[in-house]
């Protein structure tokens, strides 16, 4: 297991492509999460009247969006795990020889 082996392993185009794909998806989903969260927090910080708009009795925009941020974080996790189980793991097994 000298360093040479690893350089070779990394140079294998399929391994590299899979690693790259994983990083792209991970970064994309992280960016989506950050956009959702900081979008919400920016509204909270800079436009309170908008977030406080009443949509119905007992329902303001923030009471709708807040739980949606929570639900969407879980959904993003679900998307990643689905992708990882369907695409990434089988792809990895195909390489690991």
């Amino acid at each position, binding site marked *: 297991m000298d360093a040479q082996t690893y350089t070779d392993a990394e140079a294998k185009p399929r391994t590299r492509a899979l690693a790259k794909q994983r990083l792209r998806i991970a970064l994309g989903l*992280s960016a989506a999460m950050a956009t959702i969260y900081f979008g919400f927090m920016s509204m909270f910080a800079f436009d309170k009247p908008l977030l406080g708009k009443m949509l119905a009795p007992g*329902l303001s925009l*923030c009471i709708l969006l807040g739980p949606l941020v929570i639900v969407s974080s879980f959904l*993003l*996790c679900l998307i*990643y795990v689905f992708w990882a189980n369907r695409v990434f793991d089988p792809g990895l097994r195909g390489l690991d020889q």
Partner: protein
Amino acid sequence: MGSNTLSISFFFAFMALTLLITYWAARRTRTTEHFFAAGGEVTPWQNGWALAGDFLSAGALLGIAGIVTSNGFDGMIYSIGWLVGWPIILFLIVEPLRNVGRFTFADVIAYRLSHRSVRLAAAVGTLVVILFYLIAQMVATGSLIKLLFGLSYAWSVVLVGSVMLIYVLFGGMLATTWVQVVKAALLMAGGVLLALLVLTHFDMNPLKLFAAAAEKYGTKVLQPGSRVVSGQWDAISLGLGLMFGTAAMPHVLMRAYTVRDFKAARLSILYATGLIGFFHLMVFIIGFGAMVLVGPEAVAKAGGGGNMAAPLLALTVGGNAFFGFICAVAFATMLAVVAGLTLSGVATLCHDVWTNVVRDGMAPEAEQLKVARIATVAISVLAIILGVAFEGQNVAFMAGLAFSVACAANFPSLVLAITWRRFTSPAAVASILVGTLSSLLLIVLSPTIQVDVMGKALTQVENAWWFVSLRNPAIISMPLSCLVAIVVSLMTTEANADSTFAEMQHRMLFGWTEAASVGEEWPG
């Protein structure tokens, strides 16, 4: 007195159960692999519950419910902030962490960098985080037990410290995991039951509950206010600290190693995210329930900084027995969180500082285990002493401090070590130290310390040249730490950077060997 007797019996029933678990686990804890990672034998589902147990401190049930009761919607800012870091852990951190490391996240940062200096710096960052979080939990626990059981504050802290010491010392990670699972299940059951009982008063429709709150206290309770988080940039800074601090909390990251492989680690994060998110939605209902059915005035009168909202609500909707149950669950929660934190502190002291820095990776197994147990006793005693010394301190600021330091000190080097080839050892050390020290300094100069703790008037300090008006330092300290990491990396070079980075990338995909890392020697 009836309710107190009940809560005390519930509490002792819980303690008896957990001590039984500890006894069972102690007979299985033979190696450091068992002590720190439960032998990697925990299933993803159990680990997800344990992660939720580790992360849902009493602050989640009592603290956030209390904030919602007195301020309405704003409490949710904390609920959301404490959840959105979990997807980041899942996407960016957990798989490389599981595949490259062994017990602590410093394993990953130090993997291809100079072992000793980087590990030592990471240990400093970790210990500062753990210590502040531990103090926050100890202080909260002490004051709550004092309130609930009428025990004196100092004895409450000693009691919690001693029980936690027993779990960790004898049962290690296996006992701590099972205590977390039991506690998380109790907390979840209690939370769901409480929320359901509230909703029965409102035709099972949360909107009717919110409407009733708005009718009683004005629509402002359903709208964002500025009492909980003042200042616009402070809100963004708090968000940053909560999101990326969560993703770098040592006791959370340590649980990547208790499962069999990276797939199991990935799944356990998914389960934990679902459980924590669901619980936070329940807490929102509980908070509003307490607002309408108990009233913020009654909650404030009960003392404890609004922390009694959930227990008082339980008393109103479920009677004495339910009150006792919720109090005991809150106590169990604190105990379990403190145990989890202690264990990650012990892992840092023993695995990072002793085994890898002092003994340069050459410590025999028996010696490591002995050091781990000595470290457990030391941290427990320290936690008790600091818990007593910090009586009456603002708990939120110490917890916030812990997250800010984690965010600024640990997160940048962790991500850069995984993704950036040019990242060097001096850069990692500088980034961790700058992140830690700048967070501490900014907090010391902020109104949190100057006004709230030291009791100066705001007008007295706000024009001083050193005064920082931000209460949450992450928006300054995290970019600063990243900047230092990048600049120092570009000025220095790391030996064999290309081949070790390639080796690490390979490890990140494939792990140590087919048979995972259990029992394998740690190189270097």
